[in-house]
């Protein structure tokens, strides 16, 4: 098995690369640079690193101002604080203005672990996705993260990148090329399709293995871009398999599950089972225990796939 790398670590590395090739890239943090890994960038490019202190609203507002001059700011803190505390600054100073600000938020989801519910963002995809002009990336591994960071710098406009604290396995081969707005079929299958993002992608692959042993072939799609959503890949999965399951480390309301339901509901209604947090906040605990308690496991995906298949008309 490949070694586990957290997407935040891949972010730190990707930022340094980006800093070398693009002198307009500047990085901002709010007193969490060691955790978000922007410290990697700060170590190489101290003159292009700005620590704003514990002031997330000012973090986003300052990034907006930098963007008006042609700079490409990457602003980082934990997902709860980036999207929650500074939501209205993101809405009015970044999205409404369509400014070239990249919000790379780490420690998303319940795998934050012991810090508890106050620090576990389960709503950020929903509240970023709803904003006009915003692109939303939820990378699954280091390869998708590297691609998402590079793509974010190339997009002229606001981008939200959701990153995790825990190490995750690689789901892509060395030849993977990240293409924004395009889901990736990681495994073929005709009986159902699992559309997953973030840490749930590797679990979706495990679930597909288990299902295959039981005679059920499930397609697995990594949906690293939640917005703009790759409707084509979802609608073909709906047409060709007739049963969908979504899997995300986020509320089942408003995130990937919500986006997929919106897409199929409008054009090709099929049953969709959503694996995610069922309208609850997280709590303190070891990440592995929390994943089990909140039903974010390959086994939970297996059950959801069977339920979705049983609902096929």
């Amino acid at each position, binding site marked *: 098995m490949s070694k586990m790398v957290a997407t935040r670590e891949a972010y730190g590395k990707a930022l340094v690369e980006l800093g070398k090739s693009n002198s307009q890239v500047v990085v901002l943090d709010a007193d969490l640079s060691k955790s978000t890994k922007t410290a990697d960038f700060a170590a190489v490019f101290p003159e292009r690193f700005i620590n704003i202190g514990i002031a997330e609203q000012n973090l986003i507002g300052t990034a907006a101002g930098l963007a008006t001059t042609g700079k490409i700011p990457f602003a980082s803190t934990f997902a709860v604080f980036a999207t929650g505390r500074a939501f209205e600054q993101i809405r009015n100073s970044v999205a409404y203005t369509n400014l070239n600000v990249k919000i790379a938020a780490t420690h998303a989801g319940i795998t934050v672990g*012991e810090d508890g519910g106050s620090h576990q963002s389960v709503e950020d995809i929903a509240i970023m996705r709803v904003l006009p002009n915003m692109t939303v990336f939820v990378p699954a591994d280091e390869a998708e993260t590297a691609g998402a960071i590079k793509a974010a710098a190339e997009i002229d406009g606001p981008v939200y990148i959701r990153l995790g604290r825990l190490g995750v396995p690689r789901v892509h081969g060395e030849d993977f090329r990240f293409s924004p707005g395009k889901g990736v079929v990681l495994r073929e299958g005709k009986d159902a399709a699992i559309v997953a993002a973030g840490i749930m992608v590797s679990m979706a692959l495990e679930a597909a293995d288990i299902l295959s042993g039981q005679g059920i072939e499930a397609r697995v799609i990594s949906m690293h871009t939640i917005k703009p959503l790759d409707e084509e890949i979802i609608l073909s999965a709906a047409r060709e398999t007739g049963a969908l399951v979504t899997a995300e480390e986020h509320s089942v309301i408003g995130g990937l599950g919500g986006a997929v339901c919106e897409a199929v509901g409008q054009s090709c209604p099929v049953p969709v089972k959503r694996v995610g947090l069922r309208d609850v906040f997280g709590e*303190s605990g070891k990440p592995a225990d929390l994943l089990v308690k909140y039903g974010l496991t390959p086994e939970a995906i297996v059950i959801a796939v069977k339920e979705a298949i049983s609902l096929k008309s």
Partner: protein
Amino acid sequence: MDSKEIQELSSRAYIIRTDIIRMLGTCGSGHPGGSLSAADIVAALYFKVMRIDPKNPKDPARDRFVLSKGHAAPVLYAALAQKGFFPAEELATLRSLGSRLQGHPDMKKLPGVEMSTGSLGQGLSAASGMALAGKMDKLDYRVYALLGDGEIQEGQIWEAAMSSAHYKLDNLTAFLDHNGMQIDGPTTEVMSPEPVADKWRAFGWDVQVIDGHSIKEILEAVEKAKAIKGKPQMIIAETVKGKGVSFMENKVGWHGVAPKPDEVEDALAQLVPYCFSAGGGVVYE
């Protein structure tokens, strides 16, 4: 106040410190530095200053304490346990699945926690709301809040500073744990909040600056604060992050890292002698 009482309170602060070290050692994560720096303030409040009754934790007339710097939860939990709000054995469950002792204080789970905190910058507003209600209801309770010197970089702190002075909340006393450090380094290097005393004064608060590890100075400052009319009061407590554990003192690296077993032993060896100091006697075992 007599020196015996001060000794006893200081001893309680050190017992709180040993509990902090044990709790973090057991669970393997958490924030020692800012918990240790606040132990004397919290001990003085819970064991001398505040009118609270663990048997009646929802008494409308009780004094209230809001730990605005919620990551220092262990210092609050240790004080609440010692005060009798819940069994001390429960301290060992800190941050584990199903525990009432969440990584950051949760008012819905644990009796004695007045406000859920953890997202910095929000606690002073809540304390201000509690103080406003006290004025409306003509209740004579007092509200205490503890802020971090990094935390006051949040804009919401200054919104609450302004509104508390505007509404003349003289029933509100805040402490600033002025240990000079945050996560990424010394506060003056990351984002200077200085000069803090002038800022709070300019916002209309009564300001005192004290040694935050002197129980005597803490108690005297609270007495002075209580006598102030028409203004909220800020007590700037000069403290040492990691206070009491030599290898943690003034070390930024000990903000959010738990001690390993040998470090726990080393720390306890340094702290325990102060728990049973002369005159204080054995107050807790």
